[in-house]
C-alpha cells in the first residue's frame, strides 16, 4: 500500500500522458463509480451484519405474516425504512437470506427497496413533483414488479438452486451458532461480505466505465421522443449508466423536455433493479441463469409500464 502511494508521489505528474483521452475517461469513470458506491456497499454490509448478528434469531421472520402474498407485500415495503440504494441492498439481501428469509421473499425486498427507499422517493418528488404521474407510476410499478418476481419465484421447486454454490454454502452456516463475541463475528462477517461484494463492485465499475466510453449516448437520447423507442432507449440508458437510485431522478430530469414520461418511468423503474453494476453485484448471490430470467422479466414489465404511461398521459 505504501509502495503504491510512493509510486504515485514519486512518479512525474505527466507520466500518464501516454494514455489516450478515452483511456483516461475510462479510469475516471470507473473510479467515480467505485467512490460513489463504496459508502452504500459498506452501509449495506453493516446493516446485513446487524440483521444477522445483532438482532435476535428470527427477529424479523417471526413478525412477518404467514400468508405469502401479504408477507411479500410487507417485505417489499420494508425498504421505506432503509435509506440504502441498490448497491447496499445486495449485501443486506444476502444477510436476509442467510437469516432464513426465503429466496423469493428476498427478491421482493431486493427489487423494491431501492425504489421505495425514502431518499429515492424524496428526490423523485423534488425532480418531478406530481407531473405526468411519474412518481406514482415509479413507486406502484416498482412494488408490483418486485411482488410479481417474488410471486413467480415462490413457485420454484428448489429455490436453493437459484443461488450460487458459494452462497448456498454460506447459508448452510447458522450465524447464531458461530462462536466468538458479537464484535468479532461482525468483523469476520465484514471480511467475508467484502470479499464477495468488493471484487464484484470493481468489475461492475470497470464494465460500466468501459461501456460509457464505448457507447455514444447521443443515439439513445435521439430516440427519447418516440413513444415506443423512448421506453426502450431509456431502459438501455439506465442499464449502461448504472446510476444510484437515490439520484437517478435528477439525472434523467436533466434531459427534461427531451423525453416522454413513459420513457422516464421505465428508466426510473428498470435502472434501480437491473443495471451493469447491479448484475455484477447480484452475481455474487444468484446464478447467471436466475439473473437472465429476472432481467428479462423485469425489462418486459418495466417496458409495459412505460408504454402504458405514454398512452395514458
Amino acid at each position, binding site marked *: *500500500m505504501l509502495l503504491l502511494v510512493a509510486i504515485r508521489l514519486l512518479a512525474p505528474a505527466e507520466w500518464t500522458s501516454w494514455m489516450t483521452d478515452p483511456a*483516461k475517461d475510462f479510469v475516471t469513470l470507473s473510479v467515480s463509480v467505485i467512490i460513489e458506491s463504496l459508502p*452504500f456497499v459498506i452501509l449495506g454490509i453493516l446493516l446485513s451484519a446487524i440483521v444477522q448478528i445483532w438482532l435476535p434469531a428470527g427477529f424479523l421472520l417471526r413478525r412477518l405474516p404467514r400468508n405469502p402474498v401479504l408477507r411479500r407485500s410487507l417485505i417489499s415495503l420494508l425498504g421505506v425504512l432503509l435509506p440504502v440504494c441498490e448497491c447496499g441492498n445486495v449485501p443486506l439481501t444476502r444477510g436476509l437470506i442467510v437469516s432464513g428469509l426465503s429466496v423469493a421473499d428476498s427478491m421482493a425486498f431486493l427489487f423494491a427497496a431501492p425504489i421505495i427507499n425514502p431518499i429515492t422517493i424524496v428526490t423523485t418528488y423534488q425532480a418531478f413533483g406530481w407531473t405526468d404521474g411519474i412518481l406514482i407510476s415509479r413507486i406502484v410499478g416498482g412494488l408490483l414488479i418486485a411482488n410479481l418476481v417474488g410471486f413467480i419465484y415462490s413457485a420454484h421447486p428448489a429455490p436453493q438452486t437459484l443461488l450460487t454454490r458459494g452462497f448456498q454454502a454460506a447459508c448452510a452456516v447458522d450465524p447464531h451458532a458461530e462462536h466468538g463475541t458479537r464484535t468479532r463475528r461482525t468483523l469476520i462477517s*465484514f471480511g*467475508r461480505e467484502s470479499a464477495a461484494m468488493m471484487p464484484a463492485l470493481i468489475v461492475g465499475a470497470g464494465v460500466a466505465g468501459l461501456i460509457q466510453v464505448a457507447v*455514444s449516448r447521443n443515439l439513445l437520447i435521439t430516440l427519447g421522443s418516440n413513444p415506443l423507442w423512448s421506453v426502450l432507449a431509456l431502459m438501455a440508458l439506465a442499464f449502461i449508466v448504472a446510476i444510484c437510485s437515490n439520484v437517478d431522478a*435528477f439525472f434523467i430530469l436533466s434531459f427534461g423536455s427531451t423525453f416522454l414520461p413513459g420513457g422516464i418511468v421505465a428508466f426510473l423503474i428498470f435502472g434501480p433493479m437491473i443495471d451493469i453494476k447491479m448484475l455484477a453485484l447480484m452475481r455474487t448471490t444468484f446464478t*447467471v441463469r436466475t439473473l437472465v430470467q429476472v432481467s428479462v422479466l423485469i425489462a418486459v414489465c418495466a417496458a409495459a409500464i412505460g408504454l402504458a404511461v405514454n398512452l395514458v398521459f
Partner: protein
Amino acid sequence: MFFSRLVTRWKGLALTLLAAIATVWLGVTGQLGLYINPRYYVFTLIMAGIAFVLTIGALLVIPGPGEDDEHDHEHAGFNGPDGRRPNARDVAGAGRRRPLLAFGGSLTAVVIVAAAAVALLVVPPSSLTSAAVEQRSLNGSSNTLANAGPPPGTSDDTSAYSVKDWAALIRQGASADDLSGRTATLTGFVTPDADDPDNVFYVARFVVTCCAVDAQPVGVPVYSPGWSSSYPTDSWVTVTGAFEPNPSVLSAATTVVRPDSLTAVDQPAEPYVY
C-alpha cells in the same frame, strides 16, 4: 491451496482498504470533487472512515491462511465463471472446487486487486476530457434547463453568470439580440465545435449531479479563427467578450462570444459545476 486461501480471505479487505484510502486521500487533497458531487462528501468520507476501521479490525481477527476456521467452506463461486446449476445434493460440498479452478479464481482476484490499486492509487486523479464531450452531446441536456429564467434585462447583473448559466440561456433560445451588449467572463476547458472546428470552440464544463458517471457537458460557443494553434483541446481558458450572431456558416451555434481577451489558465480545483 495456501495461495487460494490467502487470496480468498484478504481480497475483500484489501479492496475495501484501497477504496477507503483513496477516498480519504482525495478528500484530504480536495480532489473528491473530481468524482462526486460535494453534497456527498460528508457521507462518503464518514463511510470511508468506518470502512477503514472495520477493515483494520477484521484484519486483526480473521485467522491467517494456515489456520483452520469455520468459514473455510465459503471460499468459492463468488467470482468464478461458474454457471453450472448446483443440485441440492452437493450443497454440503459446495465450494470444494478443484485446485486448478480455485487457483484460476485466485489469480482473477489478484488481477482485480492490482487493477483497483493502480486505478485508485497510482493513476493521478483527473477530470473528464473532450472525448467524453463527444460521447454525451454538448448542451444536449442542461441541468439548469428547469430553472433558467428569462433572458436577463439590461439592468440585471450578469457578471456572476457561469458557463452553465449562459449555456442554459442560449439553449432556451436567447438570441444574440437578447444578449447584445452583454459581456461574459467564462472559465472552462476548450472543446472544438463539431461542425466548424477551425473557427469555433466551446468553453465547456461538466455538470455533475451525483458522480462523474452522470456528467453532462455544457458550453458556450466562442468564435475565434485559428484558436487551436494557441489553445489545445482540453486546456483551460478564461474568455471575456460580448455576445454576437455567429459569423461561421458551418457551425450550428447561432450566438457566440467574440473574445476581447482569451487567456490560458490552470484547471480550477473544482473543474465540474453542480
